[in-house]
C-alpha cells in the first residue's frame, strides 16, 4: 500500500485531499458526510461576523459541451451565527479526530482577531487559515483581498495571529496581485507556518445581451466576482510553483485552484504542494469524487514505484526555471502520423494563419533543399487516391511551436520529435555572461 498520509506544518491528515473553504464546508452536517466518504481534511467556510448574502450568486463559463469550466461567485463568508459554526466544528473534530479540521477566519481589528482565534481554537480544530483572498464584498470592507494585496498588512495581521494562536497558521493568498512572491514572503515574515493559494481571481463571466447586465444578474445589476474551477488551474500552478521555487518561502503549501482529478492533484504536488484543496469539482460532482482522487493517486504512485506521497512533493520544482535558463539549442519539429490522421486539416490552417507556415497538403511541392520526410509518401498516396488528405511538415521551416499538436483532435497523431543539433546546451543567460547575447536585425544595426 502506498502511504498517502501527510504532515502539513504539524497538521496530520490521512491523505492530501482537503475540501477548500467554500459552500461544501458550510456546515457540520456537510463536512461529516464528506469525511464519511474519505476526505482527509476540510477548511471550514470562512467564519467572522455573519454577513448578508445576495440572491443569484454564481456565474460560469462553459467550454463547448463541458459545463462550468470556470465558476465565478459573489457569495461572502459564512452567513451563519458564529456560535453555531463553532459548535459544529467541535462536533466534527470530536467525531473525526484523525481528520484535519482547519477553520478559515476573517476579521478586521486586532482585538477581534484575538477573540475569534481564542474561541475557534476552543473547538479543538487543527489549524487556522487566514482568508486574505476574497476578492468581492469583503475587500470593500477592508478585509479579504484588501489585506492580501498589501504585503505590509499581511505581515502585520499574520504576526497578530501568531501571537494569539496555539495551532498552525496558514495564510491564504489572493492571486489578484502582480507578483505572488511579495505577499508570499510577507506572510512568511509575519510568521505563517504554511501558505495556501490561490483564492479566486477577480472576474466577470459574461453579460446578458438582452438585459445588458453582467452575470450573475442580481435584479438589474451585477458585480465582479471570483473565478475558480478548471479554468484557473494554469494560474494556480504557476503561483504555487513560483513560491515553491522561492528560497525565502520554505513553508509547506496547500494548493487550491482548478483541481478536479487525481492528475491535477499530482501535478500540484509535483510542483511543490503538500496538500491540495478542492471546492469547484465538489460543487459540480459531489463529495463522491474523493474515491477517484485517492484511488487514482495511489495507483499512479504505485506505478511510479513511490512508497509515499511525500516522494512526489516538489519533484518538478527543479525543472521550473526562468526563460533565460532554457536551452536555445534544443529543437523539436512536428511529425504527423499518416496512419492516425483523419484529414481534418486544422493543422494546415493553424500553421498557415497562426504559426510559421510549414504544413502542406499532400501533393504540394517541397522547397529546394528542405527536409520533409513525409512529403513523397503523401504525394504517392494522393496520386493513388484523390481524396487523400493527410498533410506533411516541412521540418526545415518548422520552429517546433507545438500549435499543430495542440489543436489536432486526434490524441498523439501529431507528435513533436526532438532533432539532434550537435550543439551543446546554451542558454540566453549564458550568452549574457559570455557577452554574446546579441541578435542581428535590431534597432541599432
Amino acid at each position, binding site marked *: 500500500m502506498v502511504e498517502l498520509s501527510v504532515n502539513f506544518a504539524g497538521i496530520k491528515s490521512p491523505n492530501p485531499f482537503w475540501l477548500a473553504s467554500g459552500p461544501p464546508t458550510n456546515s457540520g452536517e456537510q463536512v461529516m458526510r464528506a469525511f464519511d466518504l474519505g476526505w482527509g481534511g476540510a477548511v471550514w467556510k470562512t467564519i467572522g461576523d455573519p454577513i448578508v448574502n445576495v440572491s443569484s450568486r454564481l456565474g460560469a463559463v462553459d467550454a*463547448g*459541451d463541458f459545463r462550468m469550466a470556470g465558476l465565478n461567485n459573489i457569495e461572502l463568508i459564512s452567513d451563519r451565527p458564529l456560535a453555531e459554526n463553532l459548535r459544529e466544528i467541535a462536533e466534527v473534530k470530536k467525531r473525526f479526530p484523525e481528520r484535519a479540521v482547519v477553520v478559515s477566519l476573517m476579521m478586521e481589528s486586532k482585538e477581534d482577531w484575538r477573540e475569534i482565534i481564542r474561541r475557534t481554537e476552543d473547538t479543538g480544530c487543527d489549524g487556522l487559515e487566514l482568508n486574505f483572498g476574497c476578492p468581492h464584498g469583503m475587500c470593500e470592507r477592508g478585509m479579504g483581498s484588501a489585506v492580501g494585496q498589501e504585503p505590509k498588512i499581511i505581515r502585520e495581521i499574520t504576526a497578530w495571529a501568531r501571537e494569539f494562536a496555539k495551532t498552525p497558521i496558514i495564510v491564504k493568498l489572493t492571486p489578484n496581485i502582480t507578483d505572488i512572491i511579495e505577499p508570499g514572503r510577507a506572510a512568511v515574515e509575519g510568521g505563517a507556518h504554511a501558505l495556501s493559494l490561490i483564492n479566486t481571481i477577480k472576474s466577470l463571466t459574461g453579460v446578458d445581451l438582452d438585459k445588458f447586465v453582467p452575470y450573475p444578474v442580481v435584479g438589474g445589476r451585477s458585480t465582479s466576482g471570483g473565478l475558480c474551477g478548471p479554468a484557473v488551474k494554469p494560474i494556480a500552478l504557476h503561483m504555487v510553483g513560483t513560491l515553491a521555487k522561492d528560497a525565502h518561502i520554505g513553508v509547506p503549501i496547500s494548493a487550491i485552484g482548478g483541481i478536479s482529478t487525481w492528475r491535477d492533484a499530482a501535478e500540484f504536488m509535483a510542483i511543490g504542494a503538500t496538500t491540495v484543496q478542492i471546492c469547484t469539482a465538489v460543487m459540480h460532482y459531489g463529495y463522491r469524487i474523493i474515491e477517484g482522487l485517492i484511488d487514482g493517486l495511489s495507483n499512479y504512485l504505485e506505478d511510479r514505484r513511490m512508497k509515499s506521497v511525500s516522494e512526489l512533493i516538489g519533484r518538478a520544482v527543479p525543472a521550473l526555471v526562468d526563460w533565460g535558463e532554457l536551452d536555445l539549442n534544443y529543437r523539436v519539429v512536428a511529425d504527423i502520423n499518416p496512419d492516425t490522421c*483523419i*484529414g*481534418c*486539416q*486544422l493543422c494546415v490552417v493553424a500553421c498557415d494563419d497562426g504559426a510559421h507556415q510549414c504544413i502542406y497538403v499532400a501533393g504540394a511541392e517541397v522547397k529546394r533543399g528542405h527536409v520533409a520526410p513525409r512529403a513523397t509518401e503523401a504525394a504517392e498516396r494522393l496520386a493513388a487516391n484523390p*481524396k487523400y*488528405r493527410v498533410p506533411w511538415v516541412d521540418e526545415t521551416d518548422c520552429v517546433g511551436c507545438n500549435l499543430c499538436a495542440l489543436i489536432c*483532435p486526434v490524441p498523439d497523431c501529431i507528435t513533436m520529435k526532438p532533432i539532434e543539433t550537435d550543439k551543446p546546451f546554451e542558454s540566453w543567460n549564458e550568452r549574457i555572461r559570455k557577452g554574446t547575447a546579441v541578435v542581428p536585425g535590431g534597432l541599432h544595426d
Partner: protein
Amino acid sequence: MGESSYSRLKQAQYHELKMTKSYSLPTERWEQRFSEAQPLYTDREALGEAHRCLYCVDAPCIKACPTAIDIPTFIRKIAEGNLHGAAKTVLSANIFGYSCGRVCPDKVLCAASCVLKDYPKPPIEIARLHRYATESFLREGRRVFSPAPPTGKKIALVGAGPASLACAHELKLLGHEPSIFEKHHFPGGLNTMSIAPYKMQADDALLEAEYICNIGIEIRMGVEVGRDIDVKSLLQNYDAVFIGAGMGGDTKLQVAGEDGPGVIGALAWIEQIKTTKRPALNGNIQRAFVVGGGNTALDAARELLQLGVPHVTMVYRRTAQVMPGFRHELDAARREGMQLLEQAVITEIVRDGPRLKGARIRVVDEEIFMPADLIIMAIGQSIGREALSKFSGVELNSAGEVQVDPATGQTSNRRIHAGGDATPGIKLVVRAVADGKRAAQAMHRDLLQSAKGGK
C-alpha cells in the same frame, strides 16, 4: 402536430401566394399516426452535436453535398448560438435545406465523408443539424432573400417538385418571372406526396414549398402541360422552359390478376396515406407483400408495420447484397419485423372472384403460394416518356429520361432546360435541388446573352 403551424402560415401569408388553385390537406390523415423517427433536436442536443464538429479545412462533407452547403460554417454558427445565420448559410446554398435535413440520406453523402469516422467516432449528424438550423426559421417565415430588379424575362416550369421550385427560386432571385405548371393539387411534388411519414409529413413539406413560393413564385395548380396547355404555346409565351416533371406513375408488374382490389402501386399507396382522409385498410390486413428492393419498397414496408400489419414480407427478385435500397434502411425495416424473401418473383396474383387471395411466387427454383390481403408494387416509377415526348426537340435517352448537359441542364432544345428525376442520375431531393439551381443559373446566362445579342 404540424397542422397548426401550417394553418397559421396559411392565414398569415396565403394572400402572398400567387396560386391559381387553392388546396387543403384533410385534418385527419393516416400519416399522422406515425411518429418521427428522428425528432427535431432540442437546443441542448443541437449544441452538443454542433460542438463535436471539427470545423475541417476544405471540408470533405461540402464536396460530398450535391448542393455544396458550407456545412462546417453552418454548424459552427449553431455552436455559436447564431441560429439565424446558420439557416442563412444552409438556405443560400440549398433552398430545400429544411426537407433535405429530414429526408437526405446523409449517411451515404456528407456524413459518409465526415473525417470523424476515421477517429473512429460517429460522424456528425449533419442532416439533423440542417433541420434544426432551418425549422424555426421557416416556421417564423423569416425572409433572407430578395429578388433582383425585374429583367422582364418569363420562364415556364413544368412540375412543382423540388427541381422546379429550386430553379424558380433561383430565377426569381436573379430577377426573372417564373411560372410553374403543376398537374397535381399540391405543390412540392414527391416531397409532399411520397416522403415516408416518419421522416416528414405533408404539412411540413407544404410549409417549405410555401416558404419558397413566398418570394413571388406563381404556381398554376391542376394544370398539366401537354393536356391543359400545349408545349408550343409555352415556348411562344415564355422566354425559356424548365422541365422538372419528375417521373411517371408506378410501374406495373404485368402479371395475371394484378388489376383489382388489394393491389396498389407504392406511390399511389403513400400518396393516400399522406394526402387523403384516412383511407381504409379494410380493417384487418394480416399479411402484406411489398414487391421491390428499393428505398420506396422499404419505406412502404416500414409504414405497413407501423400501421399495425402483423406480417409484412418484402418480395425481392435478387439478393440483399445487391439491393438498391440503403443498407441502414433495410436493417431498420428488419429490426421492425419485416421478412425479406430474396430471389423471389411473383408469377401470378391469385383472386377468389375479385377478392385478393395471395400470390404464386417463384423462390429460386421452387414455386409456392403465399396468402396476402394487400400487395404493394414498389418496383419503380415508370419514366414519363409519354409526357416528356411532347417537348419538341428534346431528346430522350434509351431509358426515356431527358438528355441534358450535366453542367447546365440544357436539353437538345437550347430554350429548354431540365433537371431532377426526369433526367438521368440518382433520384434524390438534394440532387433535384442542385439541378434546378444550376439550370437557373445557366438559363440566366443564356437569357442575358440573348438580351444582349438578340435571338
